């Protein structure tokens, strides 16, 4: 194999289309107090939220861009040119697809959402730019007392639960982008699962960016009450634009005593998207929070899902796959904060760098001195496809005390030319051989996914690899 020339324009065509939409509500470009007032007025929000947003705006403006440790590419985000709120067809999502405006409905049909909903989901929320166009939960699941709705509706309809946990797992000032989200948030899901209820099928949200120069700031809050179980999946796409698009979400999970939350992301952003997301879960006694995170596409992704294990025997897990295509930077990882005895955490991260793609792993594991019987296992493996591909690992592990254990394994491997020749000798093209190698590399992780998502992920990898050999 000669070192393969990568093509700049990686083909991930499924999400790359766009229908023209007339927006009824547009907050214009730039973010200031007036923008926030506009959003609050349009959404009819209570005063405490207006104040919350304005406080967040101050923090956002105060905080420096984290370029002292992260990529300088962040400096290329021009906040004044971004549009912070766009919606069409009002702020109230529809309960049936027939009510969804035609052009928006066409978009989601093309992405296969209504079909997936019929086949294997307990509920779906479909967000188009700033607002959910559709939100529905299967009747049987609703009857169990499960609440699944947009966060805008939830803060009005269930203020007692919403307000109790909103912004508690991830404080506004956690980082510059959590502050930005807290100022401008719109859309995202709210889920509450009552004690002991196990939701048998996944709930899904789909986030679609349609507009150019736009920022999507959804806010998701999931609460699993004692002994409850829920799986939530999110997918995301955007069309390819010449200008930068910003996606900056905040996701907070709360697993009360003995509860289990599994959160699965398969993102497929186009290469112009800055994807800067803060995700964290709180696990109380005997509770479990598991993040399964697949990052494909985007220009720069910065995302380190975390679990704070606050109750005894709580468990946290992050399974992460990142594919950095040509010109892309996947800066991903995990945070595990042990805050009670006998808590265990597991991080498995696999990254693939193609062409000039760069994959960065950042991991934080914290076990303080006073705790006993805590365990962490971290594995991070990187696969480099081309000689121009890059990978970096920045683990920050602080394990104190004598009764705690931590193990960390890291590896970097390369698809060798002999391996490719071997596979070609069996009749596979170079692209097929690459694709099979990459799928083999992530295979043990993909097996943990629901079937529909592992098929989707495999297809995305095939498309990436097709574009990577010339």
């Amino acid at each position, binding site marked *: 194999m000669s070192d393969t020339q990568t093509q700049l324009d990686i083909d991930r065509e499924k999400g790359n289309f766009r229908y023209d939409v007339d927006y009824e509500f547009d907050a214009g470009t730039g973010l200031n107090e007036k923008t926030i007032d506009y959003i609050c007025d349009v959404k009819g929000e209570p005063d405490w939220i207006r104040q919350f947003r304005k406080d967040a705006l101050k923090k956002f403006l105060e905080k420096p861009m984290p370029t002292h440790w992260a990529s300088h590419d962040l400096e290329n985000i021009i906040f004044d040119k971004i549009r912070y709120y766009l919606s069409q067809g009002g702020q109230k999502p529809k309960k049936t697809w027939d009510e969804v405006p035609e052009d928006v409905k066409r978009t989601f049909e093309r992405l296969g959402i209504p079909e997936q909903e019929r086949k294997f989901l307990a509920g779906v929320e479909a967000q188009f730019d700033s607002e959910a166009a559709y939100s529905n939960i299967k009747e049987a699941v609703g009857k169990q007392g499960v609440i699944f709705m947009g966060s805008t509706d939830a803060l009005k309809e269930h203020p007692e639960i919403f307000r109790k946990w909103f912004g508690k797992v991830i404080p506004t000032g956690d980082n510059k982008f959590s502050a930005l989200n807290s100022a401008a948030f719109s859309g995202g899901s709210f889920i509450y699962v009552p004690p002991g209820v196990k939701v048998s099928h996944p709930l899904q949200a789909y986030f679609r960016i349609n507009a150019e120069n736009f920022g999507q700031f959804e806010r998701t809050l999931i609460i699993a009450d004692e002994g409850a179980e829920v799986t939530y999946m999110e997918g995301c796409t955007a069309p390819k634009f010449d200008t930068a698009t910003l996606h900056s979400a905040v996701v907070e999970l709360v697993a009360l005593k003995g509860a289990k939350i599994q959160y699965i992301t398969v993102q497929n952003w186009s290469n112009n998207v800055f994807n800067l997301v803060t995700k964290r879960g709180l696990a109380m006694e005997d509770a479990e929070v598991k993040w399964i995170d697949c990052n494909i596409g985007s220009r720069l992704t910065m995302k380190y899902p975390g679990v704070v294990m606050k109750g005894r025997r709580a468990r946290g897990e992050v399974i992460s796959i990142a594919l950095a295509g040509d010109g892309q930077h996947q800066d991903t990882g995990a945070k595990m904060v042990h805050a009670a005895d006998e808590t265990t955490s597991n991080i498995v991260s696999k990254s693939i760098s193609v062409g000039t793609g760069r994959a960065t792993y950042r991991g934080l594991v914290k076990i303080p001195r006073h705790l006993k019987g805590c365990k962490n296992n971290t594995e991070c493996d990187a696969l480099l496809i081309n000689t121009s591909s890059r990978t970096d690992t920045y683990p920050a592990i602080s394990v104190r005390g004598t009764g705690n254990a931590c193990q960390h394994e890291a590896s970097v491997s390369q698809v060798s030319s002999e391996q490719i020749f071997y596979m070609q000798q069996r009749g596979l093209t170079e692209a097929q051989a690459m694709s099979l190698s990459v799928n083999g*590399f992530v295979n043990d992780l993909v097996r943990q996914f629901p079937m529909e998502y592992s098929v989707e992920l495999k297809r995305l990898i095939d498309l990436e690899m097709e574009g990577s050999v010339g």
Partner: protein
Amino acid sequence: MKHLKIDNLHVSIGDREILRGLSLDLPTGQVHAIMGPNGSGKSTLAKVIAGHPDYTVTSGDILFDGESILEMEPDARARKGIFLAFQYPSEIPGVTIANFLRAALQARLPEGEELEATEYYAKLYEKMDLLEMPRTFTSRAVNEGFSGGEKKRCEILQMAMLQPTFALLDETDSGLDIDALKIVSHGVNSLRGPETGMLVITHYQRLLNYIVPDFVHVMVNGRIVESGTKELALKLEAEGYDWATEPEAEAVGV
């Protein structure tokens, strides 16, 4: 009958010439053995036929049924019917044998046609039984953590599944104990037939007791210096390669 014809082939890697005017005609229905001392270019010949990118053909030709394959990619050659059982097979972490072979067979079907899963597994199990491989093998990653014997058996399993027109077996006997050698040879012999031509490359005569060739060629310094029937292999076994190398050494002026 089809022919794999090597015509006055000169091959270099970097500045070093390895094959120096090698000619050979392998028709289907026959098994040819190539023997020779280490470094004579035997493995190079196999890799060049398969299209390994490290080697440059400086002159001569390789013809598959009259058509030159020099410009074809390795995968196109493979799909045309050339199979190489590697001396050192590569590991493919995370890719199971069942999935790998399935992908390889799928690559041979016209676009839009799907491999029939039931038939595929029936055939796979039949060939595995032939090679005395336990069923659990299908879910192991290709060559990952395999013993030498398992790797060679896996190569022959692939050959049995892909049913090539011309099979090149590169030192298939190396690293095999006598029991494994018998199983592998049995597998290879069962694939002999009028539709298949085989080129068996080996350093030792031992393998040829089990895979009996129709013709034996002795290769020294990048060309064939003597051809004959299987008795030639016995002569090599008894007398070593010295008799063959000496005149060659004189001929090239060493």
